[in-house]
C-alpha cells in the first residue's frame, strides 16, 4: 500500500512540476487536478519509448527515467520561470466558504471516499480489467518488456494505463486499481476548478456534485477500466479548448493538445476525438493565418503522443480500431446507408434516457438545459458543438461497428454505449453549469414567492378532499379503480421496453393485445408513470396523481376566476366549490376516473387561455393557451371534444363583448388568436389525436353499445340533481341508480345567489355570470330525458360522454365559477376582516360535501397483487378490459398465453404452436426472454419449406413482420402479414420463407396516421418554441428601446 502511495505521489509531483511551467495561467486546484494525469501519462509514455529503444521495463529503468524527467522538467521550468523558490510550491490561499458550499464539498468528498473504498474492497475482477488493462500491466511487469502484452485482448489498445499498472506490480502489486479512483478524483477536480473560474464556487460545486454522483462516472472509476482515464484526458482537453476559444490564451490550446495526445495514448479512439476538436477549433477560430499556426501546434502535440504507439502497433501487425471506423465511412460514402441500423442506434439512445440507474437524470437534464439556455446559445456555441459532435461520433462509431464482423450491434450497443458516452458526458454537466450561470439565480426577483394567501388557503382547504387517499389500501371496488392501476401497469410495460409513446397494450384480452393507448388519451398515465419511474409502486403512483388532480384543479379554477373577476376571494370560493362539488368527489372516490379527474385541471385553464386570446392576446399566451388545450385533449379526448364546443361559444361570447366597443370588421382580427391557439393545441396533440380519430374504426365497439350501454337508459331524473343520497354502485336504467347525480346543494344555492351579482354587476362582471349561469342551465337540461331529441341530433359530439349523466363533469365548471360571484365587490380586498365571508363560504361548501368524502378502501384486492396474473383475473370480471379489434369475430374468454402465466412460467413467445409440424418448422426464442417486447417479438426458425406462422395477437394496422439479421433488429426484408378471414380471433399470420437460422421479427410499427401525427406534433412543438423565442426577442428589443428613450428623456 505504501509503495502504491509513493507511486501516486511521485506521478503527481512530476505532473505538478511540469504544470508549474504554466503556473501563471493555472489555479492551484487546476494544477492539482491535472498533476497526476499529466505526470503518469508522461512517465508511461517515456517508459514505452525507452522499452522500444531496448531498455527493460524494470524498477531501475523506471527510477532512472523518472529522475531524468524531473531534471528535464526543472531545466525547462528554469528557462521559462527561473528556479523554484519552493520545492514544490505548496502555498494555498485561505479560501472562505459559505456553509452551503461546505455541505457540497462534504458531499463530493464522501463520494470520492466511497469510490476509493469500493475500489479498495474489490480485487481486479471485471472482464475488461482481467482481459485487457490489468492483464497487460501484469504481463509487462512479469516479462519486463512489451513482448507479451499482445496476449491480452485488443492488443492495439495503447499502454498508458497498463504501464502504470505494471509499475504498481513491480512495486509489489498491493493496490493496482489505485490509479482509477485517482483519475476520478482528477476529473472532478479539474472540472470543478475550471467551472469555479467561470461560474463561481457554489454553482461549480453543485455541478461537480452532479458529475461525481452520476452513477456511471463513479462506477466506471472502480472497475479497472481505462474509460475513466480517457474521460479525464478528453474532458480536460475539451474544457481547455473551450476556454481557449473564449479567452484566446495560447496556454489553453497547448494544454488541450497535450491532454488530447495523452487521451490517444490511453484508448484507441484518439483520432476520432482529434477530428472533433479540430472541427470545433476551425469552426470557432475563423479563417486566419493564426488559425493554421494554432492547428499546427495542436496537431504536433497530439501526434507526438499518438504517432509512436501507432507506428509500433502497426509494425507489430495488430488489428486496428480505425479499420472499423473506415469500413463504416466507406459504407456511408458508397451510398449504402443503413437507416435501420441507425434507427436501432437511435432507439437505443432513446432507451438510455430513462436508464436512471446508470445516468441518473443526466439525459433528462440535457433538453431542459438546452431549452433554458436557448437565449444564450451563441455564447457557448463551441461547447454545444463539442457535445453535438461527440454525440454524432458515438452514433458513427456504433454505425461502423455494425458493418464489421464480430459481435452484433445489439451487443456493442449494450456493452459499449455507456463507456463511450462516459468519455464526454461531463461536458453536458459543464454546459449545464454555464447555462445556469447565465440564468443568474442570484439576481432573480421573488415575485412568485408572493403567492396569493387565498391560494394557500385553498390548498389547505383541499386537505379534506385528499385525506381519504391517505388511508391504507386502494379503492379497488370503485368503478374504474382497477382500470386506473392496470392501465398504468400496461403503460409501464411499454415504457420499460423503451417505447416512449406506447400505443399497444400487449396483455389486454388475455394477452391477445389491444391498441388501448392509440385511442385512449394517455396524459394521466404519463403523470403516474413518471411517479412510478421515480420509485412509487403502481397503486401509490395512481393515488398521488388523484391527489394532485384535486389540488391542481382547485388552483386552476382559482387562477381563472381571479383573472376574470380580479377578486381573490371569489377565486378562493370558486376553487373550493370546484374541488368539493359532489360530482368531482364522485369522480374520485366512486368512479375512480383518473383521466377525467386530471382533465378537470385543464377545463378552467382552457377557458382562461381562450379568455386571454380575445381580451389581451400575446404570442406567449397563444402558446400557453395551446398547451392548456392540448393538455386537456391529452388527458381526456371525450371531455375535450365536448368542451371544445363550449370553448367556441365562450370565444364568440367574448368577441361579441368586444365588438360593442369596436367596429365589426375587427371581428376577423379578434378571431385569429383563438383560432391559432386552437390549431396549435390540436397540432401539439396530433400524435394522439390523428390516429385516435382515424383508427378508432379498427376497434370493435359493439360490446359497448346497446343493452346496458344504451344512453337512453341513463338520463338523470330531475329529482336526482338535488337528491342528497350517495352510493358507490353504478348507474342503472330508471331511477334506481346506485350512485349520486346531484349537483350539490351548496353549489346550487350559491349559483342562485349569483343572481345578486348579475343584478349588481360588481367590477363589470355581469356578462360573465350570465354566460356561466346559462351554461350550467343548458348542461343540466342535457342531463334529463327531456333533451333526448337533442341527444339524437348531437349524437356525434355527445356520444363522447357515453352516458348523459357524465355531462355532470361539465356542470362542475360553471357551478364552481358562479359560486364565487357572491363575494365579488367593487371595493378593494385589503383588510383581513373582508376575508371572513369567503372563508365561511368555503367552509360551508366543504361541510356540504363532507359526508361524501369517503372511499371504500380495500387493502388486498381480490385479483391479488398488481401483476400480469392480477390483470388476467381482472379481465375475467371486466368486459371492458377485453377489447378487441375489428378483425375479431369472437371475443376470447381465455387464452394459451394466460395458461402460460398461470402455470407460473414467463411467456417466451406468442406463437401459436398448435398447428406447427415440429419436423418441418423449428422455432427458437432468445435467451432471457430478450426477444419478447411490449410491441412485438423476435424468434429464430428453421423451415424446410415456405410456411405460415400464427401469433396469438389481434391484428391491427401497424403490425408488420420482417426477416432480420441474426441477433439484431436490422431488417433484411419485410414479410407478408395477413389475417385469416376464417380465424374467429383475427390473429396475425406471417408467411415465412424456408431456410436455416432465419430471424423473424414481428413488430407493432407506426401506421401512416401515427407518423403524420407525430410529425405534426414535432412541428407544433418547434413552432411553439419559435413563437416563444420570437416573443422573448421582441420584448428584449422593446425593453432596450424604452431604455434608450428614457435615457434620452433624462
Amino acid at each position: 500500500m505504501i509503495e502504491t502511495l509513493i507511486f501516486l505521489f511521485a506521478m503527481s509531483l512530476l505532473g505538478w512540476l511540469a504544470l508549474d511551467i504554466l503556473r501563471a495561467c493555472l489555479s492551484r486546484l487546476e494544477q492539482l487536478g491535472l498533476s497526476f494525469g499529466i505526470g503518469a501519462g508522461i512517465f508511461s509514455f517515456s517508459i514505452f519509448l525507452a522499452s522500444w529503444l531496448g531498455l527493460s521495463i524494470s524498477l531501475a529503468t523506471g527510477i532512472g527515467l523518472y529522475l531524468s524527467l524531473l531534471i528535464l522538467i526543472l531545466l525547462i521550468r528554469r528557462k521559462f520561470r527561473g528556479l523554484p523558490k519552493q520545492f514544490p510550491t505548496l502555498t494555498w490561499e485561505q479560501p472562505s466558504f459559505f456553509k452551503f458550499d461546505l455541505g457540497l464539498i462534504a458531499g463530493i468528498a464522501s463520494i470520492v471516499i466511497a469510490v476509493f473504498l469500493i475500489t479498495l474492497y474489490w480485487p481486479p475482477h471485471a472482464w475488461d480489467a482481467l482481459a485487457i488493462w490489468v492483464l497487460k500491466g501484469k504481463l509487462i511487469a512479469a516479462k519486463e518488456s512489451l513482448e507479451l502484452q499482445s496476449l491480452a485482448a485488443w492488443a492495439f489498445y495503447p499502454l498508458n494505463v497498463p504501464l502504470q499498472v505494471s509499475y504498481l506490480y513491480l512495486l509489489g502489486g498491493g493496490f493496482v486499481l489505485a490509479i482509477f479512483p485517482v483519475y476520478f478524483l482528477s476529473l472532478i477536480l479539474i472540472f470543478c476548478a475550471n467551472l469555479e473560474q467561470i461560474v463561481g464556487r457554489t454553482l461549480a460545486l453543485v455541478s461537480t456534485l452532479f458529475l461525481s454522483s452520476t452513477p456511471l462516472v463513479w462506477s466506471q472509476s472502480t472497475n479497472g477500466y481505462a474509460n475513466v482515464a480517457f474521460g479525464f484526458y478528453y474532458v480536460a482537453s475539451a474544457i481547455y479548448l473551450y476556454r481557449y476559444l473564449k479567452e484566446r490564451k495560447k496556454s489553453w490550446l497547448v494544454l488541450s493538445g497535450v491532454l488530447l495526445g495523452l487521451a490517444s495514448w490511453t484508448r484507441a479512439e484518439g483520432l476520432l476525438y482529434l477530428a472533433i476538436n479540430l472541427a470545433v477549433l476551425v469552426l470557432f477560430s475563423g479563417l486566419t493565418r493564426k488559425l493554421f499556426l494554432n492547428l499546427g501546434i495542436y496537431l504536433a502535440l497530439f501526434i507526438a503522443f499518438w504517432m509512436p504507439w501507432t507506428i509500433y502497433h502497426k509494425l507489430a501487425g495488430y488489428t486496428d480500431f480505425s479499420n472499423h471506423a473506415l469500413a463504416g465511412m466507406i459504407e456511408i460514402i458508397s451510398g449504402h446507408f443503413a437507416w435501420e441500423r441507425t434507427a436501432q442506434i437511435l432507439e437505443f439512445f432513446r432507451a438510455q434516457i430513462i436508464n436512471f440507474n446508470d445516468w441518473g437524470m443526466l439525459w433528462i437534464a440535457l433538453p431542459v438545459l438546452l431549452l433554458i439556455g436557448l437565449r444564450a446559445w451563441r455564447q457557448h456555441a463551441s461547447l454545444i458543438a463539442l457535445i453535438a459532435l461527440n454525440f454524432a461520433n458515438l452514433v458513427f462509431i456504433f454505425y461502423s461497428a455494425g458493418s464489421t464482423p464480430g459481435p452484433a450491434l445489439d451487443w456493442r450497443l449494450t456493452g459499449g454505449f455507456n463507456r463511450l458516452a462516459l468519455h464526454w458526458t461531463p461536458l453536458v454537466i459543464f454546459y449545464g453549469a454555464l447555462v445556469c450561470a447565465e440564468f443568474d439565480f442570484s439576481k432573480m426577483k421573488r415575485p412568485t414567492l408572493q403567492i396569493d394567501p387565498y391560494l394557500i388557503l385553498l390548498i389547505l382547504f383541499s386537505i379534506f378532499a385528499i385525506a381519504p387517499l391517505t388511508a391504507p389500501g386502494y379503492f379497488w371496488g370503485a368503478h374504474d379503480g382497477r382500470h386506473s392501476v392496470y392501465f398504468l401497469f400496461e403503460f409501464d410495460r411499454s415504457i420499460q421496453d423503451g417505447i416512449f409513446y406506447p400505443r399497444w397494450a400487449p396483455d389486454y384480452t388475455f394477452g391477445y393485445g389491444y391498441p388501448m393507448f392509440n385511442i385512449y388519451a394517455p396524459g394521466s398515465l404519463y403523470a403516474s408513470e413518471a411517479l412510478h419511474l421515480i420509485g412509487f409502486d403502481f397503486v401509490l403512483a395512481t393515488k398521488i396523481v388523484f391527489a394532485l388532480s384535486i389540488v391542481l384543479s382547485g388552483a386552476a379554477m382559482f387562477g381563472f376566476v381571479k383573472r376574470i373577476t380580479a377578486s381573490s376571494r371569489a377565486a378562493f370560493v370558486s376553487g373550493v366549490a370546484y374541488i368539493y362539488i359532489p360530482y368531482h368527489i364522485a369522480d374520485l372516490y366512486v368512479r375512480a376516473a383518473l383521466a377525467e379527474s386530471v382533465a378537470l385541471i385543464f377545463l378552467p385553464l382552457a377557458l382562461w387561455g381562450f379568455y386571454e386570446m380575445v381580451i389581451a392576446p400575446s404570442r406567449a399566451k397563444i402558446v400557453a393557451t395551446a398547451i392548456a388545450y392540448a393538455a386537456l385533449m391529452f388527458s381526456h379526448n371525450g371531455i375535450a371534444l365536448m368542451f371544445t364546443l363550449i370553448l367556441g361559444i365562450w370565444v364568440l361570447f367574448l368577441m361579441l363583448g368586444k365588438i360593442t366597443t369596436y367596429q365589426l370588421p375587427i371581428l376577423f382580427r379578434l378571431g385569429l388568436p383563438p383560432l391559432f391557439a386552437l390549431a396549435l393545441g390540436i397540432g401539439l396533440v396530433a400524435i394522439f389525436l390523428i390516429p385516435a380519430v382515424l383508427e378508432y374504426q379498427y376497434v370493435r365497439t359493439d360490446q359497448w353499445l346497446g343493452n346496458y350501454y344504451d344512453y337512453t337508459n341513463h338520463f338523470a331524473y330531475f329529482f336526482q340533481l338535488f337528491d342528497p343520497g350517495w352510493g358507490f354502485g353504478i348507474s342503472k336504467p330508471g331511477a334506481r341508480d346506485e350512485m349520486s347525480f346531484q349537483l350539490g346543494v351548496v353549489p346550487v344555492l350559491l349559483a342562485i345567489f349569483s343572481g345578486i351579482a348579475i343584478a349588481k354587476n360588481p367590477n363589470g362582471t355581469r356578462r360573465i355570470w350570465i354566460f356561466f349561469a346559462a351554461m350550467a342551465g343548458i348542461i343540466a337540461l342535457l342531463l334529463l330525458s327531456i333533451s333526448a331529441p337533442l341527444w339524437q341530433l348531437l349524437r356525434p359530439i355527445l356520444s363522447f360522454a357515453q352516458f348523459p349523466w357524465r355531462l355532470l363533469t361539465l356542470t362542475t365548471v360553471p357551478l364552481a365559477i358562479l359560486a364565487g360571484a357572491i363575494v365579488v365587490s367593487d371595493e378593494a380586498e385589503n383588510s383581513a376582516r373582508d376575508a371572513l365571508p369567503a372563508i365561511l363560504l368555503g367552509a360551508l361548501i366543504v361541510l356540504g360535501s363532507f359526508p361524501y368524502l369517503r372511499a371504500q378502501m380495500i387493502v388486498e384486492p381480490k385479483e391479488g397483487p398488481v401483476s400480469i396474473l392480477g390483470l388476467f383475473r381482472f379481465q375475467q370480471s371486466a368486459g371492458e378490459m377485453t377489447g378487441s379489434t375489428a378483425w375479431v369475430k369472437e371475443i376470447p374468454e381465455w387464452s394459451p398465453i394466460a395458461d402460460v402465466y398461470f402455470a407460473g412460467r414467463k411467456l417466451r413467445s406468442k406463437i401459436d404452436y398448435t398447428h406447427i409440424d415440429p419436423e418441418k418448422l423449428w422455432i427458437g426464442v432468445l435467451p432471457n426472454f430478450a426477444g419478447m417486447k411490449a410491441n412485438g417479438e423476435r424468434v429464430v426458425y428453421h423451415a424446410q419449406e415456405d410456411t405460415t406462422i400464427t401469433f396469438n395477437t389481434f391484428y391491427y394496422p401497424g403490425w408488420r413482420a420482417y426477416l432480420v439479421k441474426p441477433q439484431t433488429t436490422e431488417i433484411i426484408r419485410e414479410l407478408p402479414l395477413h389475417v385469416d378471414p376464417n380465424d374467429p380471433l383475427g390473429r396475425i399470420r406471417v408467411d415465412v420463407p424456408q431456410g436455416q437460422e432465419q430471424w423473424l421479427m414481428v413488430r407493432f410499427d407506426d401506421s401512416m396516421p401515427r407518423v403524420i401525427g407525430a410529425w405534426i406534433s414535432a412541428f407544433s412543438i418547434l413552432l411553439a418554441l419559435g413563437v416563444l423565442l420570437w416573443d422573448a426577442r421582441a420584448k428584449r428589443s422593446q425593453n432596450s428601446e424604452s431604455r434608450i428613450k428614457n435615457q434620452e428623456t433624462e
Partner: protein
Amino acid sequence: MQMAQLDLKLIRFLRWLATLSIVILVLAHLVFSASAFQRALAPLWERPTWSYADKMQKTWGAYFPLMQFVQQQTPDDAVLLLDPYYGAVDFYFLYPRRILHGGAEMLRQHPEIQYVVINDRDFPNFPVAGTKLMLNEHLGLYKLDLPR
C-alpha cells in the same frame, strides 16, 4: 400596461419553472445516485471479511475455483488447451503457463499440449486421451498421455 404586466409575470413564472426543474433534476439525480451507491457499498459492510477467493468466486462463479485448481495441478511451464469462451482472462489467472485456445483441431496441431481444461460448458466436446484430474463432477483437467 396590464398586458405588459401579465407577460412579465408569465416570463417570471417561466423562470421559476426553469429553476424548479433544475432543482428537481439535481435532487432526483442525487436520489438515484444514492440508491446506486447503497448497492455498491452494501458488500463492504455486509461482507467485510470476504477473502480474495470469496470475492472472485462471487464474480466468476465456478470458473474461479477451476482456475485455482489448474494453478495447483499444473507446473508453471505447462502447456494447456482451454475453451476460448473466457478469452484472455485465462492468461490473467494462469500465466506463466502457456495457453492455447481452441478445439480438437488445435489439440491435433499442437503436440506440445500437456493438459486440457474441462469446464461446465461441455468442453472438451471431443475425445481426449489422458488421465482425468477432477475438482468436482463438471470441472477438472485432462493430463494427456505423452508422447502423443
